[in-house]
Protein backbone atom coordinates (compact mmCIF):
# COMPACT_ATOMS: atom_id res chain seq x y z
CA UNK A 1 0.00 0.00 0.00
CA UNK A 2 1.91 3.02 -1.19
CA UNK A 3 0.58 5.97 0.71
CA UNK A 4 0.71 8.84 -1.69
CA UNK A 5 -1.37 11.59 -0.17
CA UNK A 6 -3.11 13.54 -2.90
CA UNK A 7 -3.66 16.57 -0.70
CA UNK A 8 -0.61 16.20 1.42
CA UNK A 9 -0.28 19.87 2.19
CA UNK A 10 -3.72 20.36 3.64
CA UNK A 11 -4.26 18.22 6.74
CA UNK A 12 -1.69 16.82 9.16
CA UNK A 13 -1.39 13.35 10.61
CA UNK A 14 -1.64 11.13 7.54
CA UNK A 15 1.58 9.21 8.20
CA UNK A 16 0.86 8.73 11.88
CA UNK A 17 -2.77 7.66 11.56
CA UNK A 18 -2.08 5.43 8.55
CA UNK A 19 0.81 3.78 10.41
CA UNK A 20 -1.34 3.15 13.49
CA UNK A 21 -4.20 1.87 11.34
CA UNK A 22 -2.00 -0.64 9.52
CA UNK A 23 -0.30 -1.75 12.74
CA UNK A 24 -3.53 -2.30 14.66
CA UNK A 25 -5.21 -3.97 11.66
CA UNK A 26 -2.25 -6.34 11.39
CA UNK A 27 -2.21 -7.24 15.07
CA UNK A 28 -5.93 -7.92 15.46
CA UNK A 29 -6.97 -9.19 12.02
CA UNK A 30 -4.24 -9.88 9.48
CA UNK A 31 -1.61 -11.73 11.51
CA UNK A 32 -4.13 -14.02 13.26
CA UNK A 33 -5.77 -14.86 9.89
CA UNK A 34 -2.39 -15.37 8.23
CA UNK A 35 -1.49 -17.71 11.10
CA UNK A 36 -4.48 -19.84 10.17
CA UNK A 37 -3.25 -20.20 6.59
CA UNK A 38 0.33 -20.88 7.73
CA UNK A 39 -0.95 -23.62 10.00
CA UNK A 40 -2.41 -25.47 7.00
CA UNK A 41 1.03 -25.49 5.36
CA UNK A 42 2.12 -27.84 8.15
CA UNK A 43 -0.16 -30.34 6.42
CA UNK A 44 0.80 -32.09 3.21
CA UNK A 45 -1.60 -31.63 0.33
CA UNK A 46 -2.74 -35.24 0.68
CA UNK A 47 -3.44 -34.74 4.39
CA UNK A 48 -5.38 -31.56 3.67
CA UNK A 49 -7.44 -33.22 0.95
CA UNK A 50 -7.95 -36.22 3.22
CA UNK A 51 -9.42 -34.07 5.99
CA UNK A 52 -11.59 -31.96 3.72
CA UNK A 53 -12.97 -34.92 1.78
CA UNK A 54 -13.61 -37.13 4.79
CA UNK A 55 -17.26 -38.12 4.96
CA UNK A 56 -18.11 -36.15 8.09
CA UNK A 57 -16.36 -32.95 6.91
CA UNK A 58 -17.89 -33.12 3.46
CA UNK A 59 -21.34 -33.62 4.92
CA UNK A 60 -20.90 -30.72 7.34
CA UNK A 61 -19.75 -28.46 4.50
CA UNK A 62 -22.63 -29.64 2.32
CA UNK A 63 -25.12 -28.93 5.10
CA UNK A 64 -23.69 -25.47 5.84
CA UNK A 65 -23.34 -24.34 2.23
CA UNK A 66 -26.47 -26.07 0.89
CA UNK A 67 -28.84 -24.86 3.58
CA UNK A 68 -27.25 -21.38 3.59
CA UNK A 69 -27.91 -21.16 -0.16
CA UNK A 70 -31.53 -22.25 0.27
CA UNK A 71 -32.05 -19.83 3.16
CA UNK A 72 -30.47 -16.97 1.19
CA UNK A 73 -32.86 -17.74 -1.70
CA UNK A 74 -35.83 -17.46 0.67
CA UNK A 75 -34.38 -14.21 1.98
CA UNK A 76 -33.98 -12.94 -1.57
CA UNK A 77 -37.64 -13.55 -2.39
CA UNK A 78 -39.14 -12.64 0.99
CA UNK A 79 -36.71 -9.73 1.39
CA UNK A 80 -37.85 -8.41 -1.98
CA UNK A 81 -41.50 -8.65 -0.91
CA UNK A 82 -40.84 -7.09 2.51
CA UNK A 83 -38.81 -4.19 1.15
CA UNK A 84 -41.45 -3.48 -1.50
CA UNK A 85 -44.19 -3.32 1.15
CA UNK A 86 -42.08 -1.17 3.47
CA UNK A 87 -41.07 1.35 0.79
CA UNK A 88 -44.11 1.51 -1.46
CA UNK A 89 -47.15 0.95 0.76
CA UNK A 90 -48.66 2.57 3.83
CA UNK A 91 -50.18 0.10 6.28
CA UNK A 92 -50.73 -0.06 10.03
CA UNK A 93 -47.52 -0.91 11.88
CA UNK A 94 -45.30 -0.19 8.89
CA UNK A 95 -42.72 1.79 10.89
CA UNK A 96 -42.64 -0.89 13.57
CA UNK A 97 -42.15 -3.67 11.01
CA UNK A 98 -39.45 -1.57 9.37
CA UNK A 99 -37.64 -1.20 12.69
CA UNK A 100 -37.80 -4.88 13.67
CA UNK A 101 -36.16 -5.98 10.40
CA UNK A 102 -32.87 -5.25 12.21
CA UNK A 103 -33.64 -7.53 15.17
CA UNK A 104 -31.70 -10.48 13.71
CA UNK A 105 -28.63 -8.18 13.57
CA UNK A 106 -29.12 -6.90 17.09
CA UNK A 107 -30.29 -9.98 18.95
CA UNK A 108 -27.34 -12.01 20.30
CA UNK A 109 -27.14 -15.28 18.41
CA UNK A 110 -27.39 -17.49 21.51
CA UNK A 111 -30.66 -15.75 22.42
CA UNK A 112 -31.99 -16.23 18.90
CA UNK A 113 -30.90 -19.87 19.09
CA UNK A 114 -32.82 -20.79 22.22
CA UNK A 115 -35.81 -18.66 21.20
CA UNK A 116 -36.14 -20.34 17.79
CA UNK A 117 -35.65 -23.75 19.37
CA UNK A 118 -38.46 -23.33 21.89
CA UNK A 119 -40.65 -21.75 19.19
CA UNK A 120 -40.21 -24.72 16.85
CA UNK A 121 -39.87 -27.50 19.44
CA UNK A 122 -42.57 -30.18 19.35
CA UNK A 123 -44.50 -28.44 22.13
CA UNK A 124 -43.65 -24.91 20.94
CA UNK A 125 -46.00 -22.21 19.66
CA UNK A 126 -45.23 -23.07 16.03
CA UNK A 127 -43.69 -26.51 16.53
CA UNK A 128 -46.92 -28.01 17.93
CA UNK A 129 -49.19 -27.10 14.99
CA UNK A 130 -46.43 -28.10 12.54
CA UNK A 131 -46.05 -31.45 14.35
CA UNK A 132 -49.80 -32.02 13.82
CA UNK A 133 -49.08 -31.72 10.10
CA UNK A 134 -46.24 -34.20 10.47
CA UNK A 135 -43.52 -31.58 10.02
CA UNK A 136 -40.65 -31.74 12.48
CA UNK A 137 -38.52 -28.59 12.56
CA UNK A 138 -36.41 -28.49 15.73
CA UNK A 139 -33.43 -30.86 15.78
CA UNK A 140 -33.61 -31.51 12.03
CA UNK A 141 -31.94 -29.88 9.00
CA UNK A 142 -35.19 -27.92 8.55
CA UNK A 143 -34.45 -26.28 11.90
CA UNK A 144 -31.00 -25.22 10.66
CA UNK A 145 -32.67 -23.76 7.59
CA UNK A 146 -35.15 -21.78 9.72
CA UNK A 147 -32.38 -20.32 11.88
CA UNK A 148 -30.45 -19.35 8.73
CA UNK A 149 -33.52 -17.63 7.28
CA UNK A 150 -33.89 -15.69 10.55
CA UNK A 151 -30.28 -14.54 10.58
CA UNK A 152 -30.39 -13.44 6.92
CA UNK A 153 -33.56 -11.30 7.01
CA UNK A 154 -31.95 -7.83 7.27
CA UNK A 155 -29.43 -8.21 4.44
CA UNK A 156 -31.63 -8.12 1.34
CA UNK A 157 -34.07 -5.62 2.88
CA UNK A 158 -31.37 -3.18 3.96
CA UNK A 159 -29.31 -3.33 0.76
CA UNK A 160 -32.33 -2.91 -1.54
CA UNK A 161 -34.21 -0.32 0.57
CA UNK A 162 -32.08 2.77 -0.26
CA UNK A 163 -31.97 1.87 -3.96
CA UNK A 164 -35.74 1.43 -4.13
CA UNK A 165 -36.32 4.70 -2.27
CA UNK A 166 -34.02 6.58 -4.68
CA UNK A 167 -35.55 5.02 -7.79
CA UNK A 168 -36.79 7.85 -10.01
CA UNK A 169 -40.61 7.65 -10.27
CA UNK A 170 -40.45 9.16 -13.74
CA UNK A 171 -39.00 6.05 -15.36
CA UNK A 172 -41.96 4.02 -14.13
CA UNK A 173 -44.36 6.67 -15.33
CA UNK A 174 -42.58 6.76 -18.66
CA UNK A 175 -42.90 2.99 -19.01
CA UNK A 176 -46.58 3.16 -18.11
CA UNK A 177 -47.24 6.02 -20.48
CA UNK A 178 -45.55 4.06 -23.27
CA UNK A 179 -48.13 1.35 -22.76
CA UNK A 180 -46.41 -1.11 -20.42
CA UNK A 181 -48.73 -2.77 -17.95
CA UNK A 182 -47.74 -2.76 -14.28
CA UNK A 183 -46.19 -6.22 -14.33
CA UNK A 184 -44.12 -5.38 -17.41
CA UNK A 185 -42.92 -2.18 -15.75
CA UNK A 186 -41.85 -4.07 -12.64
CA UNK A 187 -40.16 -6.86 -14.55
CA UNK A 188 -38.47 -4.84 -17.30
CA UNK A 189 -37.83 -1.48 -15.63
CA UNK A 190 -37.77 -1.70 -11.84
CA UNK A 191 -36.33 -5.17 -11.28
CA UNK A 192 -33.24 -4.64 -13.49
CA UNK A 193 -32.25 -1.55 -11.53
CA UNK A 194 -32.60 -3.49 -8.27
CA UNK A 195 -30.62 -6.53 -9.43
CA UNK A 196 -27.18 -5.47 -8.09
CA UNK A 197 -28.64 -4.65 -4.67
CA UNK A 198 -30.70 -7.84 -4.60
CA UNK A 199 -27.67 -9.98 -5.47
CA UNK A 200 -25.51 -8.14 -2.94
CA UNK A 201 -28.08 -8.81 -0.23
CA UNK A 202 -28.31 -12.44 -1.31
CA UNK A 203 -24.52 -12.87 -1.18
CA UNK A 204 -24.26 -11.22 2.24
CA UNK A 205 -27.10 -13.34 3.65
CA UNK A 206 -25.46 -16.47 2.22
CA UNK A 207 -22.06 -15.63 3.71
CA UNK A 208 -23.57 -14.90 7.11
CA UNK A 209 -25.58 -18.15 7.11
CA UNK A 210 -22.57 -20.28 6.09
CA UNK A 211 -20.55 -19.07 9.06
CA UNK A 212 -23.42 -18.82 11.53
CA UNK A 213 -22.98 -20.72 14.76
CA UNK A 214 -24.92 -19.42 17.78
CA UNK A 215 -28.42 -19.25 16.40
CA UNK A 216 -28.06 -22.60 14.61
CA UNK A 217 -26.52 -25.05 17.10
CA UNK A 218 -29.43 -25.07 19.55
CA UNK A 219 -32.05 -25.96 16.95
CA UNK A 220 -29.82 -28.15 14.77
CA UNK A 221 -29.79 -31.46 16.62
CA UNK A 222 -26.09 -31.67 15.73
CA UNK A 223 -26.18 -35.26 14.47
CA UNK A 224 -22.94 -35.98 12.53
CA UNK A 225 -23.52 -36.27 8.76
CA UNK A 226 -27.17 -35.22 9.15
CA UNK A 227 -27.55 -31.95 11.01
CA UNK A 228 -24.00 -30.97 11.93
CA UNK A 229 -22.86 -27.62 10.50
CA UNK A 230 -19.24 -26.90 9.54
CA UNK A 231 -18.59 -24.27 12.27
CA UNK A 232 -19.74 -26.79 14.90
CA UNK A 233 -17.39 -29.43 13.46
CA UNK A 234 -14.54 -26.92 13.87
CA UNK A 235 -15.46 -26.51 17.53
CA UNK A 236 -15.69 -30.29 18.01
CA UNK A 237 -12.28 -30.88 16.38
CA UNK A 238 -10.76 -28.17 18.60
CA UNK A 239 -12.19 -29.82 21.70
CA UNK A 240 -10.62 -33.09 20.54
CA UNK A 241 -7.28 -31.25 20.07
CA UNK A 242 -7.38 -32.16 16.36
CA UNK A 243 -6.13 -28.69 15.42
CA UNK A 244 -5.16 -29.70 11.87
CA UNK A 245 -8.70 -30.83 11.13
CA UNK A 246 -10.21 -27.68 12.60
CA UNK A 247 -7.79 -25.52 10.60
CA UNK A 248 -8.41 -27.29 7.30
CA UNK A 249 -12.20 -26.86 7.58
CA UNK A 250 -11.72 -23.22 8.60
CA UNK A 251 -9.53 -22.54 5.55
CA UNK A 252 -12.18 -23.93 3.20
CA UNK A 253 -14.78 -21.68 4.81
CA UNK A 254 -12.48 -18.65 4.75
CA UNK A 255 -11.71 -19.07 1.06
CA UNK A 256 -15.45 -19.24 0.40
CA UNK A 257 -15.91 -16.06 2.45
CA UNK A 258 -13.21 -14.28 0.42
CA UNK A 259 -14.92 -15.34 -2.80
CA UNK A 260 -18.18 -13.84 -1.56
CA UNK A 261 -16.39 -10.57 -0.70
CA UNK A 262 -14.95 -10.52 -4.22
CA UNK A 263 -18.38 -11.10 -5.76
CA UNK A 264 -19.95 -8.39 -3.60
CA UNK A 265 -17.22 -5.91 -4.56
CA UNK A 266 -17.80 -6.67 -8.24
CA UNK A 267 -21.54 -6.20 -7.74
CA UNK A 268 -21.00 -2.82 -6.07
CA UNK A 269 -18.70 -1.79 -8.90
CA UNK A 270 -21.33 -2.90 -11.41
CA UNK A 271 -24.05 -0.97 -9.58
CA UNK A 272 -21.93 2.19 -9.61
CA UNK A 273 -20.79 2.07 -13.21
CA UNK A 274 -24.11 1.28 -14.88
CA UNK A 275 -26.31 4.07 -16.14
CA UNK A 276 -27.47 5.99 -13.08
CA UNK A 277 -31.16 5.56 -12.41
CA UNK A 278 -31.70 9.09 -11.17
Amino acid at each position, binding site marked *: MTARAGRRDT*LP*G*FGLTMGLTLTWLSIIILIPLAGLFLKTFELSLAEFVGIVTSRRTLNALKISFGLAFAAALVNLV*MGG*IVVWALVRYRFPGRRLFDAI*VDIPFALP*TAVAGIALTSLFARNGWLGAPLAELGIKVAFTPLGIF*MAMVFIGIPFVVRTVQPVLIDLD*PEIEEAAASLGADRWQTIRRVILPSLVPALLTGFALAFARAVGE*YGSVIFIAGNLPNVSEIAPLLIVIRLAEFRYADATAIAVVMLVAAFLVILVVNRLQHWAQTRIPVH
Partner: protein
Amino acid sequence: MSESAIQFYPERATARSEPWLARAIIIGLTMLFLTVFVVLPLAIVFVQAFSHGAGAYFAALTEPESLSAIRLTLAVAAISVGLNLMFGLIAAWAIAKFEFRGKSVLVTLIDLPFSVSPVIAGLVFVLLFGAQGTLGPWLQRHDIQILFAVPGIALATTFVTFPFVSRALIPLMQEQGTLEEEAALSLGASGLQTFFRVTLPNIKWGVLYGVLLCNARAMGEFGAVSVVSGHIRGETNTMPLLVEILYNEYQFVAAFAVASLLALLALVTLVAKTVLERHLDQGRQTRDD
Protein backbone atom coordinates in the same frame (compact mmCIF):
# COMPACT_ATOMS: atom_id res chain seq x y z
CA MET B 1 -47.46 17.65 -26.66
CA SER B 2 -49.22 19.38 -23.79
CA GLU B 3 -52.42 17.71 -24.84
CA SER B 4 -50.92 14.23 -24.59
CA ALA B 5 -49.47 15.10 -21.19
CA ILE B 6 -52.92 15.99 -19.97
CA GLN B 7 -54.31 12.90 -21.54
CA PHE B 8 -51.87 10.70 -19.67
CA TYR B 9 -52.18 12.58 -16.42
CA PRO B 10 -54.99 10.49 -14.88
CA GLU B 11 -52.80 7.43 -15.28
CA ARG B 12 -49.97 8.92 -13.26
CA ALA B 13 -51.71 8.22 -9.98
CA THR B 14 -51.98 4.51 -10.72
CA ALA B 15 -48.84 4.12 -12.79
CA ARG B 16 -46.78 3.43 -9.69
CA SER B 17 -49.10 1.15 -7.74
CA GLU B 18 -50.36 -2.38 -8.04
CA PRO B 19 -53.94 -3.74 -8.03
CA TRP B 20 -55.37 -3.88 -4.50
CA LEU B 21 -55.26 -7.67 -4.38
CA ALA B 22 -51.53 -7.75 -5.15
CA ARG B 23 -50.98 -5.03 -2.55
CA ALA B 24 -52.94 -6.97 0.07
CA ILE B 25 -50.98 -10.16 -0.62
CA ILE B 26 -47.60 -8.37 -0.43
CA ILE B 27 -48.49 -6.59 2.82
CA GLY B 28 -49.96 -9.80 4.27
CA LEU B 29 -46.86 -11.84 3.41
CA THR B 30 -44.63 -9.13 4.91
CA MET B 31 -46.54 -9.09 8.18
CA LEU B 32 -46.73 -12.89 8.36
CA PHE B 33 -43.03 -13.40 7.59
CA LEU B 34 -41.79 -10.78 10.05
CA THR B 35 -44.20 -11.96 12.74
CA VAL B 36 -43.14 -15.61 12.47
CA PHE B 37 -39.42 -14.96 12.18
CA VAL B 38 -38.92 -11.85 14.30
CA VAL B 39 -41.86 -11.00 16.59
CA LEU B 40 -42.53 -14.51 17.89
CA PRO B 41 -38.87 -15.40 18.69
CA LEU B 42 -38.53 -12.10 20.54
CA ALA B 43 -41.81 -12.57 22.41
CA ILE B 44 -41.04 -16.14 23.46
CA VAL B 45 -37.86 -15.00 25.23
CA PHE B 46 -39.84 -12.83 27.65
CA VAL B 47 -42.74 -15.27 28.00
CA GLN B 48 -40.39 -18.11 28.93
CA ALA B 49 -38.35 -15.90 31.25
CA PHE B 50 -41.45 -15.00 33.25
CA SER B 51 -43.16 -18.40 32.95
CA HIS B 52 -42.59 -19.10 36.65
CA GLY B 53 -43.36 -15.55 37.76
CA ALA B 54 -41.31 -12.49 38.50
CA GLY B 55 -39.84 -14.01 41.67
CA ALA B 56 -38.15 -16.86 39.79
CA TYR B 57 -37.03 -14.39 37.12
CA PHE B 58 -35.22 -12.08 39.52
CA ALA B 59 -33.90 -14.98 41.57
CA ALA B 60 -32.26 -16.35 38.41
CA LEU B 61 -30.70 -13.00 37.59
CA THR B 62 -29.24 -12.50 41.06
CA GLU B 63 -27.53 -15.90 41.18
CA PRO B 64 -23.77 -15.40 41.75
CA GLU B 65 -23.11 -17.07 38.39
CA SER B 66 -25.39 -14.64 36.59
CA LEU B 67 -23.88 -11.63 38.32
CA SER B 68 -20.35 -12.74 37.48
CA ALA B 69 -21.39 -13.26 33.83
CA ILE B 70 -22.92 -9.79 33.72
CA ARG B 71 -19.76 -8.25 35.18
CA LEU B 72 -17.51 -10.09 32.72
CA THR B 73 -19.70 -9.12 29.76
CA LEU B 74 -19.61 -5.45 30.78
CA ALA B 75 -15.82 -5.53 31.29
CA VAL B 76 -15.12 -7.24 27.95
CA ALA B 77 -17.46 -4.86 26.11
CA ALA B 78 -15.74 -1.86 27.72
CA ILE B 79 -12.30 -3.09 26.60
CA SER B 80 -13.35 -4.00 23.06
CA VAL B 81 -15.47 -0.92 22.46
CA GLY B 82 -12.72 1.31 23.87
CA LEU B 83 -10.06 -0.21 21.62
CA ASN B 84 -12.27 -0.15 18.53
CA LEU B 85 -13.36 3.42 19.21
CA MET B 86 -9.75 4.57 19.30
CA PHE B 87 -8.86 2.57 16.21
CA GLY B 88 -12.03 3.65 14.42
CA LEU B 89 -11.28 7.36 14.91
CA ILE B 90 -7.67 6.96 13.78
CA ALA B 91 -8.52 4.80 10.76
CA ALA B 92 -11.39 7.06 9.72
CA TRP B 93 -9.09 10.10 9.80
CA ALA B 94 -6.52 8.43 7.55
CA ILE B 95 -9.09 6.96 5.15
CA ALA B 96 -11.70 9.72 4.93
CA LYS B 97 -9.51 12.82 4.95
CA PHE B 98 -6.77 11.72 2.53
CA GLU B 99 -6.53 10.25 -0.95
CA PHE B 100 -4.18 7.34 -1.46
CA ARG B 101 -3.81 4.26 -3.61
CA GLY B 102 -5.19 1.01 -2.21
CA LYS B 103 -7.89 2.73 -0.18
CA SER B 104 -10.60 0.30 -1.23
CA VAL B 105 -8.35 -2.65 -0.39
CA LEU B 106 -7.76 -1.21 3.08
CA VAL B 107 -11.50 -0.71 3.64
CA THR B 108 -12.17 -4.28 2.51
CA LEU B 109 -9.56 -5.58 4.97
CA ILE B 110 -11.13 -3.60 7.82
CA ASP B 111 -14.54 -5.08 6.93
CA LEU B 112 -13.11 -8.60 6.82
CA PRO B 113 -14.37 -9.67 10.29
CA PHE B 114 -17.97 -9.26 9.07
CA SER B 115 -17.39 -12.08 6.59
CA VAL B 116 -15.48 -14.44 8.85
CA SER B 117 -17.39 -17.07 10.83
CA PRO B 118 -17.27 -16.20 14.55
CA VAL B 119 -15.96 -19.68 15.23
CA ILE B 120 -12.97 -18.98 12.97
CA ALA B 121 -12.43 -15.66 14.78
CA GLY B 122 -11.99 -17.68 17.95
CA LEU B 123 -9.94 -20.39 16.26
CA VAL B 124 -7.25 -18.01 15.01
CA PHE B 125 -6.49 -16.96 18.59
CA VAL B 126 -6.40 -20.56 19.80
CA LEU B 127 -3.86 -21.27 17.06
CA LEU B 128 -1.76 -18.28 18.19
CA PHE B 129 -2.01 -18.53 21.96
CA GLY B 130 -3.04 -22.14 22.68
CA ALA B 131 -0.71 -24.68 24.32
CA GLN B 132 0.11 -26.08 20.85
CA GLY B 133 -0.02 -22.62 19.31
CA THR B 134 2.70 -20.40 17.87
CA LEU B 135 3.15 -18.28 20.98
CA GLY B 136 1.79 -20.86 23.45
CA PRO B 137 5.10 -22.21 24.85
CA TRP B 138 6.55 -18.70 25.26
CA LEU B 139 3.43 -17.50 27.10
CA GLN B 140 3.54 -20.54 29.36
CA ARG B 141 7.16 -19.91 30.28
CA HIS B 142 6.33 -16.34 31.23
CA ASP B 143 3.16 -17.39 32.99
CA ILE B 144 0.92 -15.20 30.87
CA GLN B 145 -2.64 -16.44 30.51
CA ILE B 146 -4.45 -15.22 27.39
CA LEU B 147 -6.62 -18.15 26.32
CA PHE B 148 -9.40 -19.23 28.70
CA ALA B 149 -9.07 -15.85 30.43
CA VAL B 150 -10.28 -12.28 30.01
CA PRO B 151 -7.55 -11.18 27.52
CA GLY B 152 -8.51 -13.95 25.07
CA ILE B 153 -12.21 -13.15 25.36
CA ALA B 154 -11.50 -9.44 24.86
CA LEU B 155 -9.27 -10.16 21.84
CA ALA B 156 -11.83 -12.39 20.12
CA THR B 157 -14.55 -9.81 20.83
CA THR B 158 -12.35 -7.02 19.46
CA PHE B 159 -11.84 -9.08 16.30
CA VAL B 160 -15.56 -9.57 15.59
CA THR B 161 -16.47 -5.95 16.42
CA PHE B 162 -13.49 -4.46 14.59
CA PRO B 163 -15.28 -2.71 11.68
CA PHE B 164 -18.24 -1.07 13.46
CA VAL B 165 -16.86 2.34 14.47
CA SER B 166 -14.72 3.01 11.41
CA ARG B 167 -17.60 1.89 9.18
CA ALA B 168 -19.92 4.41 10.80
CA LEU B 169 -17.36 7.22 10.52
CA ILE B 170 -15.69 6.87 7.11
CA PRO B 171 -18.69 7.77 4.91
CA LEU B 172 -19.73 10.55 7.28
CA MET B 173 -16.26 12.14 7.37
CA GLN B 174 -15.91 11.79 3.60
CA GLU B 175 -19.17 13.69 3.11
CA GLN B 176 -17.98 16.44 5.42
CA GLY B 177 -14.78 16.98 3.44
CA THR B 178 -11.76 18.87 4.74
CA LEU B 179 -12.74 22.55 4.39
CA GLU B 180 -13.57 23.18 8.05
CA GLU B 181 -10.35 21.52 9.19
CA GLU B 182 -8.33 23.52 6.68
CA ALA B 183 -9.92 26.73 7.96
CA ALA B 184 -9.06 25.87 11.57
CA LEU B 185 -5.46 25.04 10.63
CA SER B 186 -5.02 28.24 8.63
CA LEU B 187 -6.21 30.16 11.68
CA GLY B 188 -3.37 28.62 13.64
CA ALA B 189 -4.96 25.61 15.39
CA SER B 190 -2.74 22.59 15.89
CA GLY B 191 -3.63 19.23 14.35
CA LEU B 192 -4.98 17.81 17.60
CA GLN B 193 -6.91 20.99 18.40
CA THR B 194 -8.45 20.81 14.94
CA PHE B 195 -9.46 17.19 15.48
CA PHE B 196 -10.95 17.69 18.95
CA ARG B 197 -12.60 21.08 18.37
CA VAL B 198 -13.69 20.81 14.72
CA THR B 199 -13.82 17.23 13.50
CA LEU B 200 -15.08 15.48 16.64
CA PRO B 201 -18.09 17.77 17.25
CA ASN B 202 -19.07 17.27 13.59
CA ILE B 203 -19.03 13.48 13.84
CA LYS B 204 -20.33 13.02 17.38
CA TRP B 205 -23.58 11.32 16.32
CA GLY B 206 -21.63 9.02 14.01
CA VAL B 207 -19.27 8.12 16.84
CA LEU B 208 -22.20 7.30 19.12
CA TYR B 209 -23.79 5.27 16.32
CA GLY B 210 -20.66 3.19 15.82
CA VAL B 211 -20.14 2.71 19.56
CA LEU B 212 -23.76 1.64 19.97
CA LEU B 213 -23.60 -1.09 17.32
CA CYS B 214 -20.12 -2.15 18.41
CA ASN B 215 -21.29 -2.49 22.00
CA ALA B 216 -24.38 -4.51 21.10
CA ARG B 217 -22.30 -7.00 19.16
CA ALA B 218 -19.57 -7.09 21.83
CA MET B 219 -22.03 -7.94 24.60
CA GLY B 220 -23.87 -10.50 22.51
CA GLU B 221 -20.95 -12.28 20.82
CA PHE B 222 -21.21 -16.03 21.25
CA GLY B 223 -19.29 -18.14 18.73
CA ALA B 224 -15.88 -16.48 18.92
CA VAL B 225 -16.00 -16.11 22.70
CA SER B 226 -17.21 -19.69 23.12
CA VAL B 227 -14.06 -20.99 21.39
CA VAL B 228 -11.56 -19.00 23.50
CA SER B 229 -13.37 -18.89 26.86
CA GLY B 230 -12.80 -22.38 28.23
CA HIS B 231 -16.22 -22.15 29.93
CA ILE B 232 -14.87 -21.85 33.48
CA ARG B 233 -18.01 -21.33 35.57
CA GLY B 234 -18.14 -18.08 37.47
CA GLU B 235 -14.91 -16.96 35.80
CA THR B 236 -14.86 -16.95 32.00
CA ASN B 237 -18.55 -17.20 31.16
CA THR B 238 -20.05 -14.17 29.50
CA MET B 239 -23.84 -13.75 29.44
CA PRO B 240 -24.34 -15.49 26.07
CA LEU B 241 -22.19 -18.42 27.24
CA LEU B 242 -24.18 -18.66 30.47
CA VAL B 243 -27.38 -18.75 28.42
CA GLU B 244 -26.04 -21.80 26.61
CA ILE B 245 -24.94 -23.59 29.80
CA LEU B 246 -28.23 -22.98 31.62
CA TYR B 247 -30.23 -24.03 28.57
CA ASN B 248 -28.28 -27.25 28.16
CA GLU B 249 -28.89 -28.00 31.85
CA TYR B 250 -32.64 -27.59 31.25
CA GLN B 251 -32.74 -24.54 33.55
CA PHE B 252 -35.02 -22.87 31.04
CA VAL B 253 -36.33 -20.05 33.24
CA ALA B 254 -32.80 -19.03 34.20
CA ALA B 255 -31.55 -19.35 30.61
CA PHE B 256 -34.36 -17.17 29.27
CA ALA B 257 -34.01 -14.72 32.16
CA VAL B 258 -30.37 -14.02 31.22
CA ALA B 259 -31.39 -14.08 27.53
CA SER B 260 -34.11 -11.50 28.25
CA LEU B 261 -31.47 -9.04 29.45
CA LEU B 262 -29.61 -9.48 26.16
CA ALA B 263 -32.87 -9.15 24.21
CA LEU B 264 -33.61 -5.95 26.12
CA LEU B 265 -30.16 -4.68 25.17
CA ALA B 266 -30.98 -5.43 21.52
CA LEU B 267 -34.28 -3.53 21.74
CA VAL B 268 -32.72 -0.52 23.45
CA THR B 269 -29.96 -0.56 20.84
CA LEU B 270 -32.51 -0.52 18.01
CA VAL B 271 -34.46 2.37 19.50
CA ALA B 272 -31.28 4.37 20.11
CA LYS B 273 -30.13 3.55 16.59
CA THR B 274 -33.35 4.93 15.11
CA VAL B 275 -32.93 8.15 17.12
CA LEU B 276 -29.29 8.51 16.07
CA GLU B 277 -30.15 7.89 12.41
CA ARG B 278 -32.58 10.79 12.60
CA HIS B 279 -29.82 13.05 13.96
CA LEU B 280 -27.44 11.88 11.23
CA ASP B 281 -30.04 12.54 8.52
CA GLN B 282 -30.66 16.03 9.88
CA GLY B 283 -26.94 16.72 9.83
CA ARG B 284 -26.80 15.56 6.23
CA GLN B 285 -29.70 17.79 5.22
CA THR B 286 -28.23 20.92 6.83
CA ARG B 287 -24.98 20.21 5.01
CA ASP B 288 -26.82 19.92 1.71
CA ASP B 289 -28.63 23.23 2.21
